[in-house]
Structure formats: C-alpha cells, structure tokens
C-alpha cells in the first residue's frame, strides 16, 4: 500500500485551522486504545505539533469486554504552540463501545466531536454500561457533534476476502478509527504504515489486513457525507530549536539514571520489584546492559532497596524504584542508607493510596512520607519531577546529589508523569554536567593516619565513599549509631545529638548549591501559586492565562522539597496570598506553613486525575484578595 499516496491525495473537503486540539480515545482494554493513541501522538509530533498525553487506564488487565471496569482511555493535546498539559477537556472523543461513552463522556467539551462505533451499541453492551435506552438515538447526546460510524461492520467489509476469523477482524477495528482520525486531522500516515509493516512482518495476512483497514478508515472520512470538514493544527512555531523526541516520564527517568551512571563512571545497579506504575523503568533498564546496567528483579520491595544499598556499599550507583505501598515497605532500609551515609536513589512513582488504593491513577500523597515517613530523625533529599520530559534532568540530578553528598535521594514522580508523554529536547550527552564520585580508593591517601570512615568533607559534610577490595581500607558500617569520624558503634548521648543534627545539616547543605528560584510573573503581587510535581503544567497555564487577563498572579514550581531552596520564604512573603494546589489532602501547604509560619492556602482535588487548568483558574480567582 502506498502511504505517500494517502498523504498526498488531494482532499475535496474544506479545512479549518485550529490552534490546538485535545482528542481522547476510549474503548475496551483489549481494543488497542493505548497503541492507537501513541500512534496518533507520534504522527502529531512528526508534523511539528507540541504534544502532551494522558493515558488513563484501569488496573484490571482485561476486565470483561463491554464493562465500565474495562474501559481504557488515552488523551492527547496537540498544538501549534508550546503547551504544558494534556488538556482539560477533549474536543474530540472516539468511543469504541457504550461503556467507553459512559465512562469518558464527562471529558468531552460541549459541542465537541463524538465519534462512536455504532456496531458496539448492542442491547447487551448498553445494559452493561448502564444505559436503559440507546444514547446514540435518544437525543441525550445532542450537545455534541455526534458521528455514528459502523466501525466493526466497515472493518469486516474491508477484510471480506482475507479469510480472517471474526475475532481477528474485530482486533483490526482500531486501525479503522485511526485511519479516520488521521484523515480528519491531516496526519501523515507514513509512521503508522511503517509500524504496521514492522509489527506484522512475520504475519503477512495481518499486515495486509491492518493496512487495508487503516486505508478504509481514511477513505471513509474522505468519501462519506458524514464528515464535511477536516481540521488542521499547524506546526508549533514557539518551540526552542533543537533535536526532539517523544518520551514518557518512566523512559526519561530510566535514561536519566543511565546517563548519570555513565557520567559518574559508575555501573548502575537497579533493584526493583514489579509494581504499577513504576515497572516500566525496570523494563527499560533491563534492556540497557551495554551500558553496564545491572537490573535485579528482587523477591520483594525490601530486597530491592537492600540490594541497591549493598551495591552502593560495593561502589556502584544503587537505585531502586517503586509505587504506592512499595515506598512504605522500603522505609526501614532507607533509614539504613541514611545511617550508613551511602549514595542511594529511590524513585517513587506515586499512585492513588492508601493501601493498594488506585494503582493506575495518579496522586501526590507521598510527599509527607518522603519527607518524614521513617523511624527516628531520618532526613533524605527529596525532589519532584514536573512533567514527563523533566524526568531526565531530575533523575540525573538525584544521582548527582546522592553521589556527591553520600545521601539517599528520594525522587518523586507520579502516574500521570510516568505514563504521559511529551516532546523532549534531547540533550547533548557530552555536555551533561560532570559527576565525580571521588572514591577514597587508596590507603596512601590516609598519609599514615588511621582510616576514618565517618570523616567529613567540610563543604558537603559527606563521609568518604570507600572503595572496597583495597588493602588498608577495611572498615565496617551498619545501622547502629556511629561515632562521628571513627564510625565505631556509639551509644553516647552527646554524640547521638550531634549526629542527628549532622545528618540534617548534610541534607540542608544541598540548598547552598541550588540556583535561585524562578518565579513566572511579577516579583510581588496579589497571589502566588506554588506547586510541586505534575500540577506544574496546569498551574502555570492557569497563571499565564490569568496574567493575560490582567490579574496580579505569579507561579513558583518547587523542584526541591528537601531541602527547600533558601529563597522560598522570602518569595512567599512578597505576595498577599499564597495558593498551593495539590493532588492530596494538603501536604506541601502544611510544610510551607510550618517552615515559614505563613497563612498559605491549599487547593485539593484527589480524584486520581491531573488538576485541570479550568479548576485552577477558578480557584485562583476565588483566592485573589478583594
């Protein structure tokens, strides 16, 4: 099949230009929704749009077909200008069955385009989705531009002579939907066609089938009277020049870890136990063995972190990652790393909690656990990723700090960052900042003095990271309180007091190296919005829109949460109000109130979903001083 022919084929239908479009695909977990969305995203990035995605899928792998529990969604925001979020509401919703409509209808704008697979609106499927009558014909969808397409039948028609089973035919229908929306938004089909070629290289019949169905979807848009116009979203013009790729938060995290290990000259040791949504980091890293990455799929969360600590003791870069309850299981071992003052990076891809909670949904409710959730006074460095592409820099920075300060660093990600994707400006590998592990690797460096495993670097307060296997450097560490300098066991009261203060001072010392905090907006004014983690995009967009409306509002994103940058208190004091939106029950707002004794206000919606620009604008306006 000639893909170029498709793209080049002159359409006889008019085109309307849009600045940005949000499209959402929804269907059964088995309908290939995530794949469909990812292919549309790749095609959008390829034509130069800025993109941001939000996959929204269930915890069940294959819940019974047609049920609400089994609905998988994928939202893409593609734009002709720089965008920061996957979009509040969809301009276009494609639903493969009644359950998908029922579950995702609330995300569709009024007057939005709704494309429904009419063949799936059977009485059985309607009943499973809780519909007493067929919504496609009873007028309940009048507020949308409804397009009923016989997706299943048309797919079957296109494949009539191929001798495929009805199940195989059914599995091709997502390509019909993809072909149709590719036509509708003038996407170039070459990437999809290449993917089909590669994916089905060993199954020529299925390759032929999917190509045909994709084309049938495209032709359907062009040839039926149903669709009168196409939409064009031009290439974005305000994106910084450079080389880009599309990347998810989990993949960017994995790449940041590998890059840091390469720059530090340390082998990366990654201990992990499978858990949603962190597992993809393990999957990526397991494939990077040529970079010396050792991945260890441990028997449990505790073993995963402990093995990473063991590897750090052995002078590798020890990293572990988890989600949800996994971070609770690791907390005792994190305390051991604090006590033994070894480099360790812990990635927490936050999900809805407590307990098992909402495994596939996003949340920011582990902040207080990250800061304080261990026995004893147990300070670690904590930083948070703000968007999928930002994960690379954060993971890199986490490793750099862990190595330089011999301290555990907790890197907070979340479900929406982990699975969301956006274009990433690819860094020049050679220009990445240096990381010097500065191992103590020779007894001669001691100049005849006895080895002091807990001697201190005056700048960082870090103890030496001692190379194992070197004669004269034999030493012992452990979880019992240590004398400073000698590292011997100590139960001495004054020493314990001093060591508690010292471990905190070590983390606090990191603040000295942090750049000044960058506020977006006026230096002082009516209201400052402070966010951490993934609400960055929605909050910043909301603030920029309100600034354009003449409001005196500014935005501050906190990457570092422990230590807090030294200038934060001063910045907060320059605004009449401070608003802290979070996807938790008010955690950073507590921290800021405690740290600066200021009347910061919180905004929370804890629904397993990103905060929207619209709700944040409303919240900001509500909090503006009269």
């Amino acid at each position, binding site marked *: 099949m000639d893909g170029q022919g498709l793209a080049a084929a002159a359409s006889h239908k008019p085109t309307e230009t849009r600045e940005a479009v949000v499209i959402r695909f929804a269907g059964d977990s088995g309908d290939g929704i995530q794949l469909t969305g990812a292919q549309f995203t*790749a095609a959008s990035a*390829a034509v*130069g749009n800025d993109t941001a995605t939000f996959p929204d899928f269930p915890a069940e792998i294959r819940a019974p077909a047609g049920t609400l529990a089994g609905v998988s969604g994928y939202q893409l925001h593609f734009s002709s200008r720089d965008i920061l979020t996957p979009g509040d509401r969809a301009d276009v919703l494609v639903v493969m069955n009644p359950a998908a409509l029922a579950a995702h209808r609330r995300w569709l704008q009024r007057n939005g385009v709704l494309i429904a697979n009419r063949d799936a609106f059977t009485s059985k499927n309607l009943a499973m989705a809780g519909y007493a009558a067929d919504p496609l014909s009873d007028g309940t969808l009048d507020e949308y531009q409804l397009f009923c397409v016989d997706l299943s039948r048309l797919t079957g028609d296109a494949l009539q002579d191929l001798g495929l089973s009805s199940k195989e035919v059914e599995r091709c229908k997502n390509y019909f939907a993809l072909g149709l929306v590719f036509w509708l938004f003038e996407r170039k089909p070459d*990437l999809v066609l290449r993917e089909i070629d590669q994916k089905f290289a060993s199954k020529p019949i299925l390759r032929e089938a999917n190509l045909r169905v994709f084309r049938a979807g495209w032709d359907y848009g062009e040839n039926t009277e149903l669709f009168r116009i196409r939409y064009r979203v031009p290439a974005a013009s305000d*994106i*910084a*020049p*450079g*080389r*880009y*790729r*599309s*990347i998810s938060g989990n993949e960017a995290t994995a*790449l940041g870890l590998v*890059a840091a290990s*390469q720059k530090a000259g340390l*082998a990366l*040791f990654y*201990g992990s136990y499978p858990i949603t949504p962190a597992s993809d980091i393990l999957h990526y890293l397991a494939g*990077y*063995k*040529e*970079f*010396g990455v*050792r991945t*260890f799929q*441990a*028997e*449990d969360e505790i*073993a*995963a972190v*402990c*093995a*990473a*600590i*063991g*590897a*750090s*003791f*052995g*002078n*590798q870069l020890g990293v572990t990652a988890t989600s949800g309850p996994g971070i609770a299981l690791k907390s*005792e*071992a994190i*305390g*051991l790393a604090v006590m033994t003052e070894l480099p360790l990076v812990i990635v927490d891809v936050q999900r809805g909690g407590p307990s098992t909670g909402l495994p596939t949904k996003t949340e920011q409710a582990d902040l207080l656990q990250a800061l304080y959730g261990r026995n004893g006074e147990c300070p670690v460095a904590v930083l948070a990723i703000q968007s999928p592409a930002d994960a690379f820099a954060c993971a890199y920075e986490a490793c750099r700090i862990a190595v330089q300060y011999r301290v555990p660093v907790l890197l907070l990600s979340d479900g929406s960052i982990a699975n969301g994707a956006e274009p990433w400006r*690819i860094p*020049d*590998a050679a220009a990445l900042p240096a990381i010097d592990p500065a191992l103590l690797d020779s007894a001669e460096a001691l100049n005849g003095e006895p080895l002091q495993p807990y001697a201190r670097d005056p700048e960082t307060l870090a103890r030496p990271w001692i190379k*194992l*296997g*070197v*004669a*004269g*450097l*034999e*030493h*012992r*560490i*452990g979880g019992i309180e240590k004398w400073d300098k000698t590292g011997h066991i100590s139960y001495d009261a004054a020493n314990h007091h001093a060591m508690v203060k010292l471990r905190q001072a070590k983390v606090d010392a990191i603040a000295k190296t942090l750049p000044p905090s960058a506020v977006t907006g006026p230096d002082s004014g009516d209201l400052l919005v402070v966010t951490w983690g993934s609400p960055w995009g929605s909050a910043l967009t909301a603030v920029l829109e309100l600034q354009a409306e003449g409001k005196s509002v500014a935005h501050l994103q906190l990457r570092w949460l422990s230590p807090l940058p030294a200038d934060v208190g001063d910045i907060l004091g320059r605004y009449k109000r401070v608003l802290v939106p979070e996807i938790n029950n008010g955690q950073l707002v507590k921290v800021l109130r405690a740290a600066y004794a200021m009347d910061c206000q919180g905004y929370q919606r804890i629904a397993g979903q990103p905060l929207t620009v619209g709700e944040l604008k409303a919240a900001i306006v509500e909090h503006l001083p009269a």
Partner: protein
Amino acid sequence: MTAPAPVALKPKDFQTDQDVRWCPGCGDYAILAAVQRALAKQGVPGHLIATVAGIGCSSRFPYYMNTFGFHSIHGRAPAIATGLKIARPDLQIWMATGDGDSLSIGGNHFIHLLRRNVDIKVLLFNNRIYGLTKGQYSPTSEFGKKTKSTPYGSVDHPFKPAAVAVGAEAGFVGRFIDVDAKVGAEVLAAAAAYKGTAFIEIYQNCNIFNDGAWDHLAVKEVRAEQTILLEHGQPMLFGANRDKGVRLVGTRPQVFQLGHDGLGIGDAWVHDAHDADPVRAFLLARMEGPEFPTPMGVLRSVQRPAYDELINAQVAEVAARKPADLQKLLDGPHPWLVG
C-alpha cells in the same frame, strides 16, 4: 573470575580492635575463632572479603572481622549481600545470621538467596531462641517450649533449617556444633571453596537464654552416639565404637547395629554429597534424635552456576556486541529537528 593466589595469613589477621560484646561463655566466640582460623588457612586476605549481617547477637559478627563489613537490618542481610556480590564479584562474601534473622523476619530473602545461588557463605547460628531481645521462642524452638513469650508452652511447629535450605534449592548444606572445632574447620573449608550459596547451620549455645539447647548432641560423652559425621563416598556409620549404621529402606532411613540381623557395612547408606537429586539431602536434613543420629559435616555439595556470575556474564556478553553510545540512546529511534 580467577581466584588470587593464597597468601600466608594468621587468624589474628582477621581480628579487629573492637571489643567483642557477646556474653561470656557464648558459643559465638568459638564460631568467630573457627571462621578466623578457616579464613587464615584459606589464604584470602581480609581486603578481598566482606562480612555482611542482619540483626541479632550473631549479626554483630562483622564488627569483629578485619574485613569489609556491613551490619545491616533485621533479616535483610541476604538482599544486601546479593547486591554487594553482584556489584563486587571479586569479593568473597560471608554472611552471619541467626534462626530468627533468617528463618523468621528474613525468611523470604533467605529462600530466594538459596534459589538464586548467589556466591555467598551463610553462617546460620541456630541457638533456638531470641537472644538479643532476651529470651522469646524462635522459629527453631521446639514445640511446647516455655519462654518469656510462651509461658504455657509454644504451639509453633519449628523449622528444620537445613531442610528449608534443601527445599529452597540450596546447592551446599553443611552443619556443625559450635564446640566441635574439627568438624567446623572441615565444613568451613568446604564452604569457602564452594562457588554458590553455601549454607552452614551451626548449632550454637546461648548460655544465657537457652543454655544446653544442644547438649543432647554436643557433650563429648554422647556426641558419637547422637551425631553422625558425613563423609562423601563413605558408608554412614556412627557410635563411639562405630558399631551402628544408617541404611535406606526405600525412602526411609533406618538405624541398624552392625552384625545384627545379617546387616553389615555393605548395607549402610553411602553418602553422596554430589547427588543432583535433592531427595536424599532432604532426608538427611530431617534426620534427628532420638530416632536418628543428627548428621554433621557436608550434607550436600552440588554445583550449578552462581547468580552473580550469570548476571555479570549477561552484561559482559551484551556489552561486547553492542556499543554503549549514550547519545544514540538519548536520541531514541525517531528524533526530529525543530528550527
């Protein structure tokens, strides 16, 4: 990795300047001395050895060994040692643990260490009691045992550690009594030479909270009658006069008197430590008094590839045929240019 040539060492080369803080009369002293003697004999210097431990009396071991040492957290020594061994296959790793540390709180890590066959020597000090927490029953305490936490007697069925080890696919299982320096030296030497997880159960006396727990085997007068020293390829004979044997009737061990009922040395079970089938090792691991003599020595020594070698070989194999191009990795398959 080729082993370095042995060097001349003395047990005191493995002693540290730390005050040993076990109770006077504790069986741990004898074990520490036995390990230091074994390491000296082996000839691997302390800087090429790491000692890793969990929590408990036995787990203070690393402080008293002039090697690299890590005294970690309760039950987790196998996981820490696994990470360390993967990172540093050049180091010989000894792990000190106890019945509570390995079979209770760390049970999961313990079985997975054995299953993976990480090249680590495991010294399990079995005193059948919680010592450091002052006298609660442990997962190896006998049924009915009265302790601080079981004033009416324990209703917990105990583990047989060696049987757990065999069940978890252990390739090497050895056993000795703290007071038996001779057998201890043999078992420790065999464990030191073994490539893979070498599990050693040491019957250790806690003279404070469970004094005499192993007296029925340990005291000189009964040891020959109540234990049997296993030797590979040799018939299983025991008794002060070596007048008793163990034979296998089907899959059931049976004790017999030499010369009685027409049974002689030729009827005795010949110990095969290298038997790949774990069934007989499991029978040995479960044998105990009063019906049977308790086996000492090397119950099982079967080689299979060590996990740390496999994981590092895989990395080396991939690295040899795929260039590590960081820029290419960052670029991904479909980069595009803006501006």
